[in-house]
């Protein structure tokens, strides 16, 4: 087995003439938590979108779990074990928490094609379990999530990812719109993933958070990876100089 759960070689994405991502060589070890940082438009989200196959890459290779992969779409990526929390919430507002957690992977009492009978009781129990292991507190899981705060909804979204996490979790700015307490809760979930040995790619603008949570920091600038630094060999000022381009040109 290779050392890496995920590896990209020469990953490139062009939108017409715009080179959003150029020759990205990236590795992620088993159980490792890596942050992806960079200015707006540096290529962070583009990078994530190529891995999760929300978009199709222009060139390069993605090696996941020891084998080159060519996912047709995010669904296939998920089925292969890559769980993603997207910047835009991927939740159905009118459904309750268990329905959202199990959306697309419902449990059934009785299989009958589209009219399969849902096993609501077991799904609810498993939801409570999942919320417990991720330490997410939701006052009433039977309410449609429309009635919940942005933070609670984000927690549901992340709990879903964490509960089904198998091989790799990717979070694209999971705390961008959250309050202090809610951010803390999301960070707790991330620590829980670390304890369980689930590898993570965290896209974040928040350097305090990044230094708090991850093992390694990868800096993007103008579509290129300009630095990949272990947390203990760098500091905030160093990272900022890479982001802004004061330092750079270090080929990784």
């Amino acid at each position, binding site marked *: 087995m290779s050392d890496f759960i995920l590896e990209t070689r020469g990953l490139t994405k062009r939108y017409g003439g715009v080179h959003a991502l150029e020759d990205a060589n990236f590795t992620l070890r088993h159980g490792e938590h890596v942050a992806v940082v960079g200015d707006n438009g540096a290529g962070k989200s583009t990078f994530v979108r190529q891995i999760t196959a929300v978009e199709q890459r222009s060139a390069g290779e993605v090696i996941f779990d020891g084998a080159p992969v060519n996912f047709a779409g*995010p*669904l296939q990526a*998920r*089925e292969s074990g890559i769980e993603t929390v*997207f910047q*835009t*919430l*991927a*939740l*159905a*507002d*009118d*459904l309750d928490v268990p*329905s959202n957690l199990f*959306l*697309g*992977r*419902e449990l*059934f009492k009785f299989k*009958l094609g*589209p*009219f*399969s*009978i*849902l096993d*609501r009781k077991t799904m609810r129990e498993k939801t*409570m379990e999942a919320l417990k292991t991720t330490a997410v*507190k*939701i*006052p*009433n*899981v*039977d*309410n449609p999530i*429309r*009635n*919940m*705060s942005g*933070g*609670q909804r984000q*927690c549901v979204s992340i709990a879903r990812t964490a509960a089904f996490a198998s091989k790799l979790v990717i979070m694209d700015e999971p705390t961008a719109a959250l*309050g202090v*307490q*809610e951010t803390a*809760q999301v960070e707790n979930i991330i620590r829980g993933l670390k304890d369980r040995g689930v590898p993570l790619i965290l896209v974040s603008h928040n350097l305090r958070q990044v230094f708090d949570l991850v093992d390694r920091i990868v800096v993007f600038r103008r579509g290129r990876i300009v630095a990949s630094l272990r947390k203990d060999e760098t500091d905030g000022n160093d990272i900022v100089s890479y982001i802004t381009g004061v330092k750079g040109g270090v080929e990784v």
Partner: protein
Amino acid sequence: MAEPNHGLGGLKYDPSKKARPQELNVFVALLIIVAAFEILGRLILGDSFLFNTRDNVEGLFNTQRLSIIILQVATVGIIAIGVTQVIITGGIDLSSGSVVGATAMVAMSFAQTALVNGNPNPKAIFGDWAMDLPILVPILIGLGCGLIAGLINGALVAYTKIPPFIATLGMMVSARGFARWWSTGNPISFPTESYNAIGSGMRPVFVFIALAVLFHLIMTYTKYGKHSYAIGSNEQATRMSGINVDRHKVLVYVIAGMLASVAAIVVSSKGQTAQANMGVMYELDAIAMAVIGGISLQGGRGSIIGTVIGALIFGVIISGFTFLKLDAYYQEMVKGAIIVGAVVLDQWRQKSRGARV
């Protein structure tokens, strides 16, 4: 299991403040409307809307009026059950009335008797081979018409990505044209006795109730129901969750089309004849029933129970106007106002919900 004071970020959950189900509000509205007609009737006509005031009839209630209301509601109500599902997925189906017309014509053509009072059937569409067929033949052919219309609607919506409004508007015009072409505009009559029996007496009501119960269970307890709500709630998220949204939409429109054809069989059997202009405006009545019943046109919210109560409200209002001897022209005008009013109410509901978050 949820602890009442299990707070998050200082938020407390109070179970007693849980929102009342929408259906209860709609039901209260039904009671208020019935009461309003009762009071107006007593004041204006000196007659009761709800209760029996005749000496020559037994019973507390005016069962004749009530059964007419339910019977009137039942046919369009069957369509409304399908329309409800379409609206819950965030779509709309304008074709159901025309599908009723087309299906009635086709189904009736296979339900005719060879001899009428000893003479050959004067309205015969086909030759002898299509006469006195078993009851199952016109029913299956009728359901087939709905299935085809639904398949076309669903495929247009799901795969060409044109708005459901346009796709089903096209079907509305084309299916009506088909109904007129089928017998070059002539009515089709003299069905077999077994076909007649489908819509006789209060049977349409039983068909309506049975279908309402069936689809209530399906929408509440099955994958089909869950995914319908999910699509109407957040189509993108549903797609990302690995659900085949396009295929699901086709299924929803097929079910709606087939329910329209059930209504067509019932209504043509009840009238013992089929005409090309059968079911005109049924689609709007069905949509009105759903919207009055609390189905959100934005998708994702509402229930079959709501639509059933909405259908009753609709029937009570129409019957109430007749009872008050309001002219038929006014009835149409008021009907339009009710539909618009129900949508306005839905918008308000959504706004107040939004503000509560």
